[in-house]
């Protein structure tokens, strides 16, 4: 019985083959030379980064190119999605291509990129790190060696409805969870805020969940991965941290839809006036203050450091670092360009154009900037006391495990103890060799 049609067979085969062909080969032999002495060669380079939405980056690069006609920089824009940026950079590294020189890395990628020898170690003595916030410098290091220079930073802050708190007779933003819940109860007694939700931090199953976990556990005095590099989610502090998220959701202090809201969803929720307290990134500040009708809370909110169980809480650190690909040519130019982009003037211009938080401490105290971005002092203290996300070579697996544990606990699928015990086991395997 030869009933299988011939052309049909061919088409089936072709479709199947295409489903396989996507999985490309990688032989992963890295370069040997990643030491700081290798920073040689001058000439044209590329700068690989996400979308330059404001056009400010192009302006800064134009400024550089005018002064360095023989060492021109070309911007290579990658997709918006951070994971796709990472993919393309990894692809470039595994093929050892010299197409990418300076890489704009998310703070959590440093360990993976450095451990795989995809980055050139940077000389600490040739970069002025003294003016930068110490917490941000840590994100550019792997095993005490510097691989990336922080160019922008980010940290969570507590946005709160100043107007409602005032009407409820509360003058100070809360410093502890209990104060926050008490304040919320008082606000809810107001007629205009009967149906308002108390609090929101992102608990959807994504990178945001990891950030919320890091903040909640850090605020309780714990850490997901301890200073010794071993997972520490079997501690009472980790339990207390996760329980805060679980209870806030179960008790209805967070909206029921919290498990589906992403960063932008949370922003819309706050801007619609449905929240008293919200943990959010600084970018929301100017957007929620727009008076074009898109925000119902313009001028009605303020920011404060995140609260914790018994005192101020801990924020998580975001932001980007600049690094030099191990396979690039003209690394000396690359280093100069990094110094230029992370310098005080460039960061100041960038803050004004894109409102991305700088890494240079002095800019947070600049009166002109503080006038334009009133949240800067709060953000500075948040960054100073912030903790990074777990440093792991297998960060992708680590964050997936954390998300799974956090999400199953918050949705009630798994009790807190079991979720954390599972997580401890998984992290133990994933970080065994670090």
């Amino acid at each position: 019985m030869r009933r299988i049609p011939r052309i049909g067979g061919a088409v089936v085969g072709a479709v199947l083959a295409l489903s396989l062909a996507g999985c490309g080969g990688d032989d992963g032999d890295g370069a040997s030379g990643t030491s700081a002495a290798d920073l040689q060669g001058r000439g044209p380079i590329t700068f690989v980064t996400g979308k330059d939405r404001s056009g400010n980056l192009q302006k800064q690069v134009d400024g550089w190119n005018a002064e360095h006609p023989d060492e021109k920089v070309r911007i290579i824009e990658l997709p918006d999605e951070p994971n796709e940026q990472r993919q393309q950079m990894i692809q470039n590294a595994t093929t050892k291509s010299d197409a990418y020189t300076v890489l704009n890395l998310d703070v959590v990628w440093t360990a993976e990129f450095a451990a795989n020898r995809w980055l050139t170690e940077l000389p600490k003595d040739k970069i002025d790190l003294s003016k930068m916030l110490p917490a941000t410098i840590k994100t550019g290091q792997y095993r005490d060696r510097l691989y990336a220079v922080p160019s922008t930073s980010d940290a969570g802050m507590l946005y709160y409805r100043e107007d409602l708190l005032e009407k409820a007779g509360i003058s100070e933003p809360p410093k502890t969870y209990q104060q926050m819940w008490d304040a919320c109860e008082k606000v809810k007694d107001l007629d205009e805020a009967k149906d308002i939700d108390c609090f929101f931090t992102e608990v959807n199953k994504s990178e945001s969940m990891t950030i919320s976990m890091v903040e909640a556990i850090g605020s309780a005095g714990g850490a997901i991965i301890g200073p010794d590099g071993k997972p520490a989610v079997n501690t009472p502090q980790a339990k207390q941290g996760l329980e805060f998220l679980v209870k806030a959701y179960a008790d209805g202090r967070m909206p029921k839809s919290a498990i589906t809201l992403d960063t932008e969803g949370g922003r819309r929720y706050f801007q619609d006036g449905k929240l008293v307290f919200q943990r959010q990134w600084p970018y929301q500040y100017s957007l929620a203050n727009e008076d074009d009708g898109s925000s119902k809370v313009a001028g009605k909110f303020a920011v404060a450091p995140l609260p914790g169980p018994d005192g101020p809480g801990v924020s998580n650190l975001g932001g980007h670092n600049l690094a030099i690909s191990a396979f690039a040519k003209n690394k000396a130019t690359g280093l100069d360009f990094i110094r230029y982009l992370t310098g005080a003037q460039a960061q100041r211009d960038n803050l004004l154009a894109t409102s991305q938080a700088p890494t240079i401490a002095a800019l947070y105290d600049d009166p002109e900037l503080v006038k334009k971005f009133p949240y800067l002092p709060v953000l500075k203290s948040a960054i100073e006391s912030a903790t990074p996300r777990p440093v792991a070579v297998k960060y992708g697996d680590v964050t997936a495990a954390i998300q799974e544990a956090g999400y199953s606990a918050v949705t009630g699928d798994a009790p807190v103890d079991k979720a954390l015990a599972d997580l401890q086991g998984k992290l133990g395997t994933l970080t065994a060799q670090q």
Partner: protein
Amino acid sequence: MTTTHDERSAAAHAAAGAPRTRKARGGGGAARGERRLAALLLSPTLLVLALVIGYPVLAGFRESLYARGEGLDENGFVVEGTRFVGLDNYTAIFSGDAADAFWNAFGNTTFFTFTTVILETVIGVGMALIMHQAFRGRAFVRASILVPWAIPTAISGLLWRWIFQADGAANAVLRQQILWTADGFPAKLAVIIAEVWKTSPFIGLLVLAGLQMIPKDVYEAARVDGASAWQQFRSITLPLVKPALLVAVLFRMLDVLRMFDLPAVLIGVNQDSVETLTMIAWFEASNLRYGSAAAYATILFGYIALIAYLFVKLLGADIIGEAREQTKRAKRRKPGPKRKAVAS
């Protein structure tokens, strides 16, 4: 693989038809020459197929037998080099947590395939029947039915994401508070709805092409005999449109078995309720475990091949069946001079 084999046997078949007739007239050398010519003429095709299909399949399989170094040396650097691990990547899939994730994804993939293809077929045939009618504004209806198919999947994923968000259109219309995009059963429903919306027009279009091949007089004869509309549909439309329909369904099945973009955009990656096999392969690859990713892809390859084979076997979806039927009939009925014409 199957392709080259089938192509070769097709060539052999075509060539084999000829010698018998020629031999009758005593021309053995000519037959060999013709066979060689056939092979020569087909060789560019075979070469291209070997390059674009054979090589990736084999390279993917080879990749699945290797693992990239994952350990760290004392300075914290990854120990480099790939090593041969035999079938370890495959056995790892079926042990421990990975097995749970695999069977969950396998179940999701199968569930999505059956539910969406059945719904799409019913809706697609309905669409085709409507598009086939002659009425005012028919061109407009045809064009508008095709719009979902024309939208890139990632974009339609985003559109449906807006519809399904907590304060989105779906909940507003249903007057419910369903958390569609949270990890759970509603997420499965959301994916099915979006997938069916997007791909029903594909089946509709192919079935419409089949419908247009059916001669009008068959229906006229049926009407004269007093057949009801349902009888006409069951006894004329369905059997005559079956070849086109089966091809459309086969293509949809192959497509949905490797579904990735829609659930990834609509719900997100690493969501147990909508994770498909391709999504696991993607996750493995994005975490630099290319060998393991290739193993997942190879298993999926085998699964798709099995489903396609069973489908073709059981339902007789026959893509060039018509041509072969003619050949057979010609052989059976008309021996002699006509046969030569068909064979050559």
